Each structure stands twice: as C-alpha cells, then as structure tokens.
C-alpha cells in the first residue's frame, strides 16, 4: 500500500473530501516529523513508537578491500511496534 491508497482508504472511512483528506494526511505526517526532529518520541497507542536514535560512530571493515573505514555518527529513526501490533503478526 502506498500513500495514495492510504489517503483514499482513510477518506472512505471518514467520509472526507479529497482536499481535506490530503490536508489532514500532510498535517499528520508533518506533525510526526516535527516531533521527531525535536528529538521527541512519538508513541501511538496500539501501534508503536517512533524514536530518533543516535548511532555512534564505528569502524567498519570493507569485506572486499579490507580497508578500515570510520563511519561517522548519525541520527536515525527507529520504530518499535507495540505489543498489540506485534501480537497481530505472530
């Protein structure tokens, strides 16, 4: 399922106008994003939580050349599904 499908699906459930549906969708994504950028954890009950995490720098070795590379630190978003969601798929 892609973004378009998602919007139309929700629109059908909520009986929204196409314009409104798109607006709400964008606002929701933007809100989540804004919180993640602030470093906050977005926890959605029954779904899971999205958390920005800092990955420390590390030395990795290229398997082909054997070169050792220093990989810089980075911040990434991790998703931890809630138990409810987990149970649905196990």
């Amino acid at each position, binding site marked *: 399922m892609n973004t378009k499908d*998602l919007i139309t699906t929700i629109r059908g459930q909520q009986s929204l106008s196409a314009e409104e549906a798109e607006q709400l969708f964008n606002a929701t994504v933007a809100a989540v994003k804004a919180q993640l950028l602030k470093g906050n954890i977005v926890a959605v009950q029954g779904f899971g939580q999205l958390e920005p995490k800092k990955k420390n720098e590390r030395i990795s070795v290229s398997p082909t050349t054997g070169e050792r590379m*220093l990989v810089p630190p980075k911040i990434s978003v991790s998703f931890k*599904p809630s138990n409810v969601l987990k149970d*649905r*798929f196990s």
Partner: protein
Amino acid sequence: MSEKILIADLVAEVAELTSVPKNRCDDYVKAFFETIANALSVDGIVKVKGLGTFKLVSVEERKSVNVQTGAEMIIPAHSKVSFVPDKVLKDEINRPYAHLKTYVLNANAPLDPPEADDDEATMDDADVDVAETQSTDTVAEVVAESAESVVEGAEQEVEEAPAPISEQVAEDSKQGETPIVEDDAKEAVTANADVDDKQEQSTTNSNDNSDWFDNWEVEYESTDKAEPAKSTEPSPKPASLSELLAKAEADRNERVEEVKPSATEAVSEPETEDSDEIVIPEDIKTPEQIVAEVMASVKGADFKAEQPVADSVEEVKEVAEEKVEEVVETVTEDVAEKADEVVETPTEPVAETAEQPIVNEQPAATLPTEEKVQHGKVLGIAIIAFLVLLAALIFGLLKVDPDFFKSLKAGSDNLTVVPADTSSLAQELSAYTEETENETDSTAAETDEQPEETIEETVKDQLSKPMPAEAVIDPLWDGEFVAYMKRQNPDVSLEIKGFNKEVAIKPGLFLTMVALDNYGDKSYWIYLYLYNKDRIKNPNNVPIGTKIRVPILDETLVNGTNEKNIEMAKEIRKVFVK
C-alpha cells in the same frame, strides 16, 4: 528532549496545522495509524510519503533457552514490523551530523577512535599530553622570557641603537626554538654577521676611550653573549673571522704581527681557562668558589689582554672593516653546510646556551664590585653557577673548534655593541641580588655610552630588512609546511590575522568540526593540525581535552567553500598526514 508525544499531542498539532476541528483530527489520526496497521496485515508493506516504509518481515523459527528454567524452547516463525525512514526524514533528522563523511583509516592508525565510550582511556592520554606540552612550553617560555627581558633592558637603558640589536639576538634565540631552524639559520647568522659589522665599527669608539678596563670587561662579556646568540651555528663564523684577521696580519706591518700573537695568547688563555674550570667542578663546589674562579679568570684576562688588544684592534680594524662583507658571505655558506647538524641538536641545549651568557655575565659584572657574597645571594648564584656548568658542558659538546677561542680576540674587538644586554642582565639579576643592582646598572650605564652613536644608523638600515619577512610567518606553523607552501603555493599567505579562540576537544568534537565551524569547510582541519602540531601528536586521534588554537587565516589560504582552497587543503593533507 525525548519527551513522549502521545496521540493527544499529535492531534493538537494537526488541528493547529489544518484548522480542522479537533475531534475530527482525533478521528483522522487514529484512523491513520489503524489503517497502516490493517494495510500491513493485508499487503505486508505500507509506504508513507514523508515518513517511511513499514514492512512486515518474516522471522524464521529459532532455538532459544529459557533463562529462568534453562529449558530449551523453540521460538516459532513469525513476522515482525520493520520501519525504514523516508530519505527526506532521514536527511532532515541527521542534519547535525550531515557534514561527516566516512573516510578510510590509515592501516597503522590506533584502533581507538575518539569515541565517547573511550572517555577514560583518552583522558589519560590527554593528561600525559598536557604534561608533555607543558614541559616543552616551559623551555620555550624560559627562553622567550630571557629574550624579552633582554629587549626590555635594552630599551630602557639604551634608547635607540643597541635595542634593535638585542631584539635580533632575542629573535635568534627564539628561532633556535622554532622548527624552522634550517631555513632561518642563514638569516640568523647573517643577522649576527651584521651585528659583527656594527661591532667592529663600534670598537673604534670604545678603544679611543681611556677607560678600557670597563670596556674590555664588557667586551669579554659580550663575546660570551655573542656566542650563544649564534647558538644556531657557533663555530664557522669565528673561524672565518680568524682567517680574515690572518689576512689582515699579512697585509699589515710587522708591528701588528708582533702584537698579534701576544694578543691571541692573552685572550685565548683566559677563555680556555674559563671553560675548563667551569667544566671540571662537576661535583659542584660552593657557588662562591666557582664565582671566585670566574672572577679570577676574568681579571686574569683583563690584565693579560690589556695592551695587546688595545693596540692590535686599532691596527686590524680598518682591514677588517673592508672585509666584513666577505665574512658575511663565508658565514652564510658555512651555515648552509652545517645547517643539518644544527637541526639535529636538540632544542634544549640551544635554549640553555642562549641562557648561559646571561648567567655567565652576572658573576663577572657584579662580583668585582662586591667582593663578599652574602648568604641571601648564595642561593641565586648557586643556580647561576649550575646553569653555567650545564651551559659549558653543552658548549663543549657542540664541538667548538680551537680556532674559535683564538678568534675570540677578534670577537672581543668587535662585540662591544652588546652592552645593552648587560643592563638587562643586571635587571634580571636584581631578582636575586637587589643590593648589587645599582652598581651593575651604573657599570652598564657607563658602557652604554660608547657604542650608541656610531651604530645607530647602520643598525637602523640593516634591521629594517629582515623584520617584515620574518613577521609574516608565524613560528607555530609546522616548519615543513612553511617550506612546502613556499615551494608549491608561493602566492598563498600564511599570515595569522589574529586568534578566534582556543577550542578544547571534547567527545564528539573533532578537528574537522572545528574547521567547519570556523573556516566553512571541514577540509581545512589540516591547517588546524599544522598550526597546533606542538599539541597534536596524532591527528587521527586527538585526545579529549586538547586545546586547539584557532587562528584567523588569510583568504588566500582559507576561503569558505571555494573549491580551489578545499582542493589545496586536501593536497596538503595528503602530503602531511599519511
């Protein structure tokens, strides 16, 4: 930071963004996540633009052990939800570290990168480093201080002419400290040769003066002073001078020849005596004894040298003046040859020989005036005497050839210029012996009067040249780097326009980031390394706590994101960091 944002908060934000009633937003947001979850179970994958991809990943069954019971169990195959953030989100959220790039490590580089986890280990390293840099710093500081005091004293006592000379001497001694020895050796010695030039001229005055005893004393002291001033290359210059004098002898009449040998004997005797005596008592006699010996040698030198020096100087000086230029040339050549040797000699001896004259002169200048050494001074003089011993030892190690002592006659003729130094030395001495201060000052004042006038003009002429050239290149730059830039990028200025600040390296802060903050690109970190080479041993692992000087650099060297400058920085990095 790290607040937990719940649906209610999200809804409030969405409502604010869309001006849709809150209850409808609430419905929508809940439906949003619910739909994603449902779609996951149906399609197994949901792509949300701007957020990322949720995907079901199947996990095979695996064996595990129940930690509590120890019983083996099998975790059945199942699916789990994975999330890969959208590229846009990833980039935005990683912005703080976006400038960092992966780079290949040197195979020999130590395995512990400056990670936050390694705090303890690196902190230890930092301590050691700090200690080391301090010790080297102190040596440099001592020399710098003594040099400064020389300059100060010179400025106070003698207002115009000798001051620049002593500044040069100070510079010379400083240059001895810098890694640029090889390059500067020539300049330093030519400067010395200049000094000699003036000194020879000044002898005219000093010898006319009937008060030759004081003169000679000063001359004697100043010869000592001049030796370390040439600390970068002591031997060749006097040798060539003596050669020159030999020529002068041949040219001159017989009388000079008669006088000359006696003069050389007279002067060389006390000189060698002096150094021998100082070297022998390694087990350290009482300071009074040593001082007495020095005094005796000085006095002995006075009496023996009295007549011959006065006579021969007048005879020789004219010819000597004519050939001074030749001397300068030969000196520079000699220096070029021996530059390598000089570079090898550690900075410590250089520093100490530079200090030596200061110390050496003190007993000579003060003690004749005050015969009895009081107990208060004993301590200070003990230190002085010890330094004299050290300096004499090192002096011997420098393989000063015997010609040097013979040529000291010529040197003693010429070196009257430096009396400015005696005054400053007297000042320095005052820290130890306040009582003798007035007396030494007065002797210094006497000696100052003579050289001043004649030297004035020549000094100004000659000093104006070397000063600007040396002022441009900061001694903190790595010597090799300066040489490299002269070769490869001569139009790039290494001028330091001031200091932003000192930055202390801490976990997560690297040279590259300091460079990015201050110069606009991380490639410029190499300049930080080359400018702080005395503090950074291994640029791949700068210990936490290291303080980095951040100079304001010229635009020709560092110019924001200009590709040319960045390329140059990268080239330099390849050359200087393996």
